């Protein structure tokens, strides 16, 4: 027992050590701060970027520009809302871009049979594809990446078949309720913006204040433990993919109403924008942790950066993607660092 001494005195046979039942190492304050940054970091960046932009460019903080940004963000935001649920369960949904396009075409096509058909058709069809995604992921235990990739290809094919390879563009008649829903404004803001806000409030309540929401977190946090704790793992997964499909269809329908037609070339790569927005908003790609409010902020941040680059006339708009990409990389690095600091990863 002479040469064996290490730097610390050896505790006698395990007792005398401070048991871990009280506060663990790392002060509660630093943990709170990290949690705050992880949850609201994107919001802080959004505020700063917006402030700088409004001082730098006269045309940034105008009512028109803000209104346009808000309305054009609305559709991606709705898609990102569904994506948030999927990612918190530890999954991914690559089909939303195609479902967005399909939803738009279905709404425009259905508008000749009345508003009800125009609205319900995209929700039902895209929701059904979401159900299939969920069933394959949850029951057949296939990788979400592959399942939704297949759905992405299939849904786009279906959309092209409906439009004769994109040759047919269905229009939405002016003055219809559907057109009003997409193009009209209430209290100075576009209707899609109000619908989006309402959906996000509902989404936040569902996620934080219902059992289903708890199950979403539980499944993403530790699927095996969730099953042993009695959470309905398969049902939860099926529901989040269904929700994601329905919301993508709805976003597509609203977008078609806004544009007054079912444009077939939309939605390419939208799934990646949605994933980027969700991750920027503080949701962990590995699942188990996330916030819908963050996803909304993420969408706005992407849109503001795009707008700022457009304002800088000398910058080619292609650089917008470079900036978005670099920004995303920075966010993921910061998230990982914060997560490790909080001992979450």
């Amino acid at each position, binding site marked *: *027992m002479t040469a064996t001494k290490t730097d610390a005195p050896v505790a006698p046979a395990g007792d005398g050590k401070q048991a871990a039942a009280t506060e663990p190492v790392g002060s509660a304050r630093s943990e709170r701060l990290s949690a705050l940054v992880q949850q609201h970091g994107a919001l802080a960046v959004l505020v700063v970027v917006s402030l700088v932009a409004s001082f730098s460019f006269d045309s940034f903080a105008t009512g028109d520009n803000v209104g346009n940004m808000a309305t054009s963000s609305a559709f991606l935001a709705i898609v990102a809302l569904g994506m948030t649920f999927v990612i918190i369960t530890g999954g991914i949904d690559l089909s939303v871009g195609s479902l967005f396009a399909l939803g738009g075409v279905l709404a425009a096509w259905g508008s000749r049979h009345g508003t009800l058909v125009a609205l319900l058709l995209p929700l039902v069809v895209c929701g059904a594809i979401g159900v299939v995604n969920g069933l394959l992921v949850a029951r057949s235990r296939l990788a979400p990446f592959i399942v939704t990739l297949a759905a992405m290809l299939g849904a786009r094919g279906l959309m092209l078949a409906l439009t004769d390879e994109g040759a047919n563009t269905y229009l939405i008649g002016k003055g219809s309720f559907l057109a009003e829903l997409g193009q009209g404004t209430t209290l100075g803001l576009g209707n899609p913006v109000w619908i989006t806000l309402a959906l996000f409030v509902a989404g936040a309540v569902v996620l934080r204040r219902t059992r289903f929401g708890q199950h979403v977190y539980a499944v993403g946090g*530790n699927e095996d*433990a*969730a099953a042993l*704790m009695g959470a309905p793992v398969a049902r939860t997964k099926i529901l989040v993919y269904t929700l994601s499909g329905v919301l993508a269809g709805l976003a597509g329908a609203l977008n078609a109403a806004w544009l007054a037609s079912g444009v077939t070339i939309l939605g390419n790569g939208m799934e990646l924008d949605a994933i980027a927005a969700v991750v920027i908003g503080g949701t962990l790609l590995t699942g188990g*942790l996330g916030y819908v409010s963050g996803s909304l902020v993420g969408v706005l941040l992407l849109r503001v950066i795009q707008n700022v680059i457009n304002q800088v006339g000398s910058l080619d708009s292609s650089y917008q993607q470079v900036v978005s990409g670099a920004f995303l990389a920075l966010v993921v690095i910061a998230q990982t660092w914060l997560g490790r600091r909080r001992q*979450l990863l």
Partner: protein
Amino acid sequence: MAPPAEVLAVRGLSKSFPGVRALDDVDLTLHPGEVHALIGENGAGKSTLIKLLTGVYRPDAGDIVFQGRTVSFGTPLEAQKAGISTIYQEVNLIPLLSVARNLFLGREPRNRFGLLDSARMNREAEEALREYGVRVDVRRPLRTLGVGAQQMVALARAVASEARIVIMDEPTSSLEPREVETLFSVIRRLRDEGIAVVYVSHRLDELYAVCDTVTVLRDGRRVHHGRLAELDRLSLVSTMLGRELGEVRQEGLTKFTGDHHATDSRPVLEAVGLTVPHKLNEVSVSIRPGEVVGLGGLLGSGRTETAKAISGALATSSGRVTVAGVPLRGGSTPAAIRAGISLLPEDRKSEGIVPGLSVRENISLAVLPRLSRFGLVSEARVDSIVDTFIERLRIKASSPQQKVGELSGGNQQKVLLARWLAMNPKVLLLDEPTRGIDVGAKAEVQKLVDELAADGLGVLLISSDLEELIEGSDRVVVLKDGAVVGELTGDEVTEDKLMRTIAGHAPEKDAVEEAASDG
């Protein structure tokens, strides 16, 4: 119904998996307020029994009568709702969810709008946890709590859900002594409230401290049941291991010659005071060249952990390892390999062989860096090494190109052995080298171990097969609850002596002192 009715009556429960009869005609009776020890070695069927009771598996035959009704749970949720809760050895909660939300998952208090009542949930969670000596901010993610506190949350969760039976599967493996005391007081409270507890543990002290009755399983069958107080420790151990006391030692059951002419030279391996929190406590082992040292002890006593700590695969909080007098940097597997330590892991499927690669590739995997120059591998040298070992270890493969996945378990084990021998190790750590391989191959592996020791290697042998351990080892270091409790040398290396040491029947003084002075 009669008042002292049992809360659970299991009759003739059987369950088979392909190739294994995991549980064979097992009975189990639990009365309200009974704390029942369920014990057995690896593969005895404890886990299977628990999983049948909790709805994870369905029985092939037999009845489970719970509170007078025959039940058949389809999922853990159904069992839980009916009143059978389980806490597992590894904490099974959601790390990123808050403590309170973990505690209440699936039975959250809701307000009149059907929404979760967070304030009430946090308040009740705090109150509930205080009873278990856990005072934390319940809004924090569970992950930020210590393992012991997490286990307490799991316990609080299991107990809070109006359970009639609480199954605890090695609940103390990650607890501090103080927390174990808290756990015991909870168990006693459960007993007073008429809740039955099934307690699985390998720590004999704990069993005798809290359990009233006992069921011993071995090879899927119930081999003993009754009051624990009527079964002394030694009988418990011998029942569990399936050995009669005083059983005559039969020579020749294994292929070990039992004599390795261990030289008096300096130890080739010296491990001193290895400590891993919750797992090892000041474990010391030394091996001389040409010596086979056995590690004895029950499941969970720290045998595998000792081997892993020596080989750098498990980080130690204190202790040191020297190889041929040269100290080793701890916690680094590459450093251990360079120093000449090779570990043949317990689970060769997940930690050892690469089934899709050929025999040749599997053997040369670890040694490749040494056979290459400027990043290029000398094929001729690889061939010569591979051929040498295929011949020397008598590996039966159609050619060096055959995929290892197609070989028998015994030959896979030999391929692994060859991989490490190609590194020219000084010390070989063998963790269950003959598990899961057929009798013939077993004998061959045992013979090889003998030959390797005769060639001057130091060998550390871990085996649950008592005969193998006793006959194969020159000395046996006995572990219990992560600490060395004795060392058997020379004529003491017998099954009888080993079981007595495990059971804690005061081993000979000199054995204890020898083990202690070893550190």
